[in-house]
């Protein structure tokens, strides 16, 4: 997508892919903070509403600053089109609701971000959409769980906070065989670890609030259409009018013209601008996030007060092999560690001076949280176990500070436990 994107290597694409020159020679698309867009004649606006002409009408539907980011994200993920949304949850909700209808089923990895789990298990269930959860490492169970009502398979590239790494290509093979699309939440891996389209993702979703934005200055989400799924299918009669007109853009067309427009979870132009700023430095930051996380994981794994460390980059991790292959030797910026018990986990968090105790990942700053008492507090012990959340677990989003300072912060806090 976008002439400039072709032939560029990934790091270059982050900066130049899908970009267009701005007004006055500006190298950025300005923040067009306008709710609506005026036309000289009634005829022009009529053409726009008929979809005969292209142009901006109303920022919930489209806006130049949002469109600039959409083109860049589509280029980065090698997609055919993208839609940016108010948040990562808005991206997931919008993309999922564009596909499933009442009576349909979602087959999802059980290892999910808490908000997505709650959306699937509770919220969508109230609208007649059932989700079956399976262990993402049990591919036989996944294949066996597909039934006539399945309309979508959903998985996270790196489970947050379980830190398990499913084999995305194997998920894609099952989805393809079943005639349903595979949607992949690639928030934790980011496009830097893998372009999941290459692994077979039909739809990619991101919380851009995390690593893509990178400095935690705004909430945002994105839906990227790989253009790979054949919507001309008896399983998806609701896509028929969109397939007829827009062919491989059927998903983006239905999402834009119906679901995104009606649910209305559009991004703000300022936030889209900020996400675009972050995107330019994603590769540079991820390189450091990954290097620092590996160093911290190694330090923690060798520490006598640490019971266990879960980071796919540690050679004894059960996910090392698949992660190493899938992400080409890069393992992301998030890890979890276990201490003796919950009081020790709290003492560690309280003893850290550099790392901030807050509910987020993907900031330049090192972040920690005790998921069992916070972001997963509402879930039963059984569900927590499914998500890999235990009382002694601390999640760390490793920042891009000097690794020696991060390690020293943990060393001091562990010594004082």
């Amino acid at each position, binding site marked *: 997508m976008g002439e400039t994107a072709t032939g560029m290597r990934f790091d270059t694409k982050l900066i130049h892919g899908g970009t267009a020159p701005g007004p006055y020679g500006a190298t950025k698309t300005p923040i067009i903070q306008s709710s609506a867009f005026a036309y000289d004649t009634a005829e022009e606006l009529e053409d726009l509403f008929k979809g005969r*002409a292209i142009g901006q*009408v109303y920022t919930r*539907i489209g806006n130049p600053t949002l469109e600039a980011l959409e083109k860049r994200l589509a280029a980065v993920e090698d997609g055919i*089109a993208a839609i940016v949304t108010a948040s990562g949850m808005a991206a997931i909700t919008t993309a999922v609701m564009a596909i499933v209808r009442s009576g349909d089923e979602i087959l999802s990895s059980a290892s999910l971000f808490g908000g997505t789990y709650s959306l699937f298990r509770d919220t969508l269930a109230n609208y007649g959409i059932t989700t079956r959860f399976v262990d993402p490492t049990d591919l036989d169970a996944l294949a066996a769980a597909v039934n006539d009502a399945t309309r979508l398979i959903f998985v996270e590239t790196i489970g947050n906070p379980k830190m398990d790494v499913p084999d995305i290509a194997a998920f894609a093979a099952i989805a393809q065989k079943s005639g349903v699309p595979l949607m992949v939440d690639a928030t934790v891996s980011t496009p830097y670890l893998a372009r999941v389209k290459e692994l077979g993702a039909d739809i990619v979703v991101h919380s851009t609030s995390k690593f893509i934005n990178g400095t935690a200055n705004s909430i945002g989400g994105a839906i990227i259409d790989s253009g790979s799924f054949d919507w001309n299918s008896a399983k998806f009669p609701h896509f028929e009018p969109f397939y007829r007109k*827009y062919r491989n*853009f059927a998903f983006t*067309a239905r999402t834009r*013209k119906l679901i995104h427009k009606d649910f209305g979870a559009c991004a703000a132009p300022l936030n889209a601008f900020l996400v675009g700023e972050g995107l330019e430095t994603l590769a540079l930051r991820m390189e450091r996030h990954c290097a620092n996380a590996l160093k911290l994981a190694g330090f923690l794994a060798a520490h006598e007060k640490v019971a266990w460390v879960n980071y796919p980059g540690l050679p004894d991790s059960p996910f090392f092999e698949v992660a190493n292959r899938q992400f080409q030797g890069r393992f992301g910026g998030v890890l979890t560690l276990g201490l003796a018990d919950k009081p020790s986990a709290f003492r560690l968090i309280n003893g850290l001076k550099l790392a901030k105790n807050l509910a987020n990942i993907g900031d330049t700053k090192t972040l920690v949280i005790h998921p069992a008492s916070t972001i997963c507090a509402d879930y039963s012990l059984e569900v927590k176990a499914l998500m890999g959340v235990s009382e002694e677990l601390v999640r760390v989003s490793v920042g891009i500070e000097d690794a020696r300072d991060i390690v020293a912060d943990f060393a001091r806090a562990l010594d004082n436990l």
Partner: protein
Amino acid sequence: MNLTVNGKPASIAADDAISVSNLLETLQVAQREYVTVELNGDILDRDGFDAATVRDGDTVEFLYFMGGGSL
């Protein structure tokens, strides 16, 4: 050659037939990678733009998935 394009009469500097790709170029249609073309009421395949021919008197509509619809 006279056509009806998006509901309006349009005069094209061509004798009796041009390809749809050619027409998109001639009319400088915006964002051609996304446009859907309807020729005399039939939606064309995107990869058939070179082969499809537009003749004098034809009706052509260009449609986009990005905008449109009731707000």
